[in-house]
């Protein structure tokens, strides 16, 4: 049987035509570009026929091509971003000596005893609050969800200056972060949240007003903070179209309640919908990429009676915060002249950096004990995908397996042993690494995924069903010279682990004993509707079903407490879109009709990688809350160029099949 990307059955002849057309197109491009001479010209092959060193192949957010620009008296740089499949002779960030600085573990967010003025059910516009609607939770149950819960936070978003490395090659950077009252940092402080303990954050915009002209080249100081993955009421979700400027605030109510509490699993919700690794980030429409690049991100770790944060209880996972460490990954570019972080304002495809940060420091080291740790890995974007490996430079041929225990921060039914895991923008994975076998050694967390531009990884071979074995245009241009996965030790070493020697006690569960966590909620329920979303590019304009983001339009209406299936399709043969849906998680039922095979696809998700020429089938239960939410590509450059749609949850859903 043969299918097109919509999942429609097609004849064998038609399928062959489709494959041939794609192949012809690739060959056409290849014919024009893959000659040895062209490759040399593009700097990919040396005269001796060797591939150039890895640094020359890494993607850059800026290119350098001579232009005839009379306004510039210095070096003439063209924007050069993702000009071609192949990066040209590109500007590089200053070279920073890696592993000089210790890893920063973000401190736990500090609550406050009260807020002035006191939070109100209705938006307190008189005091400068900008919120779309009254809190929903107190209307459902004012006893469980008091308007002023006992846990309160006061977060200011501020501009601040920070050293991202102790290497003097890079001056201090002026960026944006969150201040819980203990100082401004980026990533912001980590929330330590519990199910059954509702909380409220006052998010205050204390960034410099835009008109004071202290913009360092990018960033829009009007904000809206989204709590990514939360089962949250819409008024507190951080909608991209609700934004506010300096001097204003929004009170955001986080009920910390399980999905189903007000519907099919009343009153406490479905334990199998438990969330654990969430993150918060700015979501200002059209400017999310700039504002998150500038630092407006942070973690929100949510615990319950099973995932307790204490390795002596519950699932016995490594204890928070000493052995349970959130890691936020980011790639950035710095101007070689000024040393300041720069952002390509004029990019449509996606932005890659050549300098890697973990928790706000460039390539830090982390001194660990020879025992098990839980790491929560987050790709903060803007556009890069990662495939994380453990690398021992003294033993490159060794495979160093570790354990995947959660996808997008939601625990899997049980641990899966892996050698690597691929993570796209906004995705998270929870992993357990046992350092006991590396006692006394230095090893690295290495990204070995080969990505040369904003389109996505050069090949998606490991993740796409055999029927669509076609790789991206770029990888066919580059042909066999571009492996999907770089050899061990030649990728991006992101984090250095210095493992102490000797033996220490370890009270955490050994994943090899196959502990069980939550069960996956069943996906057998009949959907009320199956909707189709085509992710495409129309004359360079990112679109969903041929339409574009509009803050004044709801594209469809989901019925409260109903089941839906969504088909995400990607007709662009060249692009991977990490698609994020707010409010509810989903499970991947199929990729091109086949059940998911990659371990990271088998759990509950809030971002799904939509690969070239794919059709992915998702299962949802939309429960409890009402109101507006978006679906969007989380390659934030695509998102900011209108690859987003608003929808809402209402009492009576609609029947729009292709919204």
């Amino acid at each position, binding site marked *: 049987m043969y299918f097109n990307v919509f999942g429609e059955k097609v004849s064998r002849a038609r399928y062959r035509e489709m494959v041939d057309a794609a192949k012809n197109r690739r060959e056409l*491009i290849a014919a024009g*570009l893959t000659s040895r001479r062209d490759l040399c010209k593009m700097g990919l092959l040396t005269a001796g026929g060797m591939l150039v060193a890895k640094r020359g192949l890494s993607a850059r957010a800026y290119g350098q091509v001579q232009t*005839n620009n*009379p*306004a*510039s008296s*210095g070096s003439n*740089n*063209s*924007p050069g971003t993702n000009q*071609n*499949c192949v990066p040209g002779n590109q500007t590089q960030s200053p070279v920073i000596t890696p592993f000089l600085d210790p890893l920063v573990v973000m401190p736990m967010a500090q609550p406050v005893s009260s807020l002035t003025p006191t939070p109100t059910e209705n938006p307190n516009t008189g005091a400068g609050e*900008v919120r*779309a609607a009254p809190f929903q939770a107190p209307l459902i149950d004012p006893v469980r969800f008091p308007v002023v819960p006992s846990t309160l936070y006061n977060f200011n978003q501020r501009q601040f200056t920070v050293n991202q490395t102790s290497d003097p090659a890079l001056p201090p950077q*002026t960026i944006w972060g969150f201040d819980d009252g203990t100082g401004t940092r980026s990533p912001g402080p980590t929330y330590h949240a519990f199910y059954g303990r509702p909380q409220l954050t006052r998010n205050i915009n204390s960034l410099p*007003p*835009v*008109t*004071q*002209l*202290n*913009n*360092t*080249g*990018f960033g*829009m100081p*009007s904000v809206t903070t989204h709590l990514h993955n939360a089962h949250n009421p819409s008024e507190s979700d951080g909608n991209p*179209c*609700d934004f*506010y*400027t300096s001097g204003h605030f929004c009170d955001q109510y986080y009920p910390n309640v399980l999905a189903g509490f007000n519907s099919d699993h009343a009153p406490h919700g479905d334990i199998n919908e438990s969330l654990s690794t969430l993150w918060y980030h700015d979501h200002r429409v*059209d*400017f999310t990429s700039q504002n998150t690049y500038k630092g407006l991100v942070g973690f929100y770790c949510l615990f319950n009676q099973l995932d307790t944060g204490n390795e002596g209880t519950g699932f016995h996972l490594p204890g928070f915060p000493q052995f349970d460490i959130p890691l936020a990954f980011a790639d950035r570019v710095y101007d070689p*002249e*000024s040393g*300041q972080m*720069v952002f*390509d304002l004029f990019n*449509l*495809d996606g932005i890659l950096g050549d300098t890697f940060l973990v928790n706000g420091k460039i390539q830090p080291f982390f001194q660990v004990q020879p025992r098990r740790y839980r790491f929560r890995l987050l790709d903060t974007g803007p556009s890069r995908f990662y495939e994380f490996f453990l690398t021992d430079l003294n033993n490159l041929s060794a495979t160093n397996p570790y354990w995947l225990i959660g996808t997008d921060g939601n625990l899997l039914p049980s641990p899966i042993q892996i050698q690597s895991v691929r993570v796209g923008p906004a995705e998270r994975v929870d992993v357990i690494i046992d350092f006991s076998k590396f006692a006394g050694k230095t090893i690295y967390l290495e990204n070995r995924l080969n990505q040369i*531009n*904003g389109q996505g990884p050069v090949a998606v071979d490991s993740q796409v069903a055999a029927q669509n074995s076609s790789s991206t*245009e*770029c990888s066919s241009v580059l042909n066999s010279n571009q492996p999907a996965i770089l050899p061990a030790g030649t990728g991006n070493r992101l984090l250095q682990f210095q493992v102490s020697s000797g033996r220490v006690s370890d009270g955490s569960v050994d994943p090899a004993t196959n502990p069980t966590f939550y069960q996956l909620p069943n996906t057998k329920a009949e959907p009320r509707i199956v909707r189709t979303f085509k992710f495409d590019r*129309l*004359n*360079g*304009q*990112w*679109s969903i079903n041929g339409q*574009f983001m*509009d*803050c*004044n*339009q709801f594209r469809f209406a989901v019925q409260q407490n109903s089941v839906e299936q969504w088909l995400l399709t990607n007709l662009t043969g*060249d692009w991977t879109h990490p698609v994020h849906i707010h409010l509810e998680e989903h499970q991947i039922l199929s990729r091109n009709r086949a059940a998911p095979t990659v371990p990271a696809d088998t759990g509950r998700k809030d971002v799904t990688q939509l690969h070239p020429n794919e059709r992915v089938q998702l299962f949802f239960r939309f429960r409890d809350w009402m*109101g*507006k939410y978006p679906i969007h590509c989380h390659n934030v450059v695509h998102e900011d*160029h*209108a690859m987003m749609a608003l929808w809402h949850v209402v009492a009576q859903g609609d029947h729009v099949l292709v919204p």
Partner: protein
Amino acid sequence: MADISRRKLLGGTALTPFAAAAGSLSGAGSKATGRSEATPSELARRRIQRLHLPNVPLITHEGKQVMFYDDLVKGKVVTLNFFFAKCDEICPRVTANLAKVQKLLGADLGTKLFMYSFTLKPEEDDVRAIKSFREMFGARPGWTFLTGKAENLELIRKGIGFKYPDPAIDGDKTQHIGNVRYGNEPLMLWAACPGMAHAEYLAESLSWMLRPETNRIQSS
């Protein structure tokens, strides 16, 4: 449908800092003087100009020669998009959409905000051709159509990122980028909308450049 229920408008005062900002740069051709003398903001603004907003000569639909950065963009709130007169697919749709947008901009067009449309095919689109194309869509003063040397227009197109990673597609003008770049040059606020987005929403997005102190909420 939603409404904008609360807005704080700066009104005319929003433009004051622009003039100060424009004055702080001693011309686009000035020499970058390194870390010690320029603030990070000034360096960033120069860098944006150098990489993205080439100061190349162009010719308007009135036959007047102008410099892209100095005359069209510097110190202004602008929209930038590409077209060619004989394009029968996307260009008329985007241009017709922009014609709706210019109506919604009211008195801001030509005073606080300037729209620029650049030809992709200067070899076909001389002054007369872009003038008649412009008139076909009833463009008001403040919406300028431009032609010029092909290499200069290419510098602008690539400068503002209207290009594809795949050179085969990039060379196919029927697939040209239909986005509308919008920005506030002195404040270094730049974004883009699809040219085929709803005109009302496009006009609203442009208003954020004129009045960046806007708060916005959408009712559920």
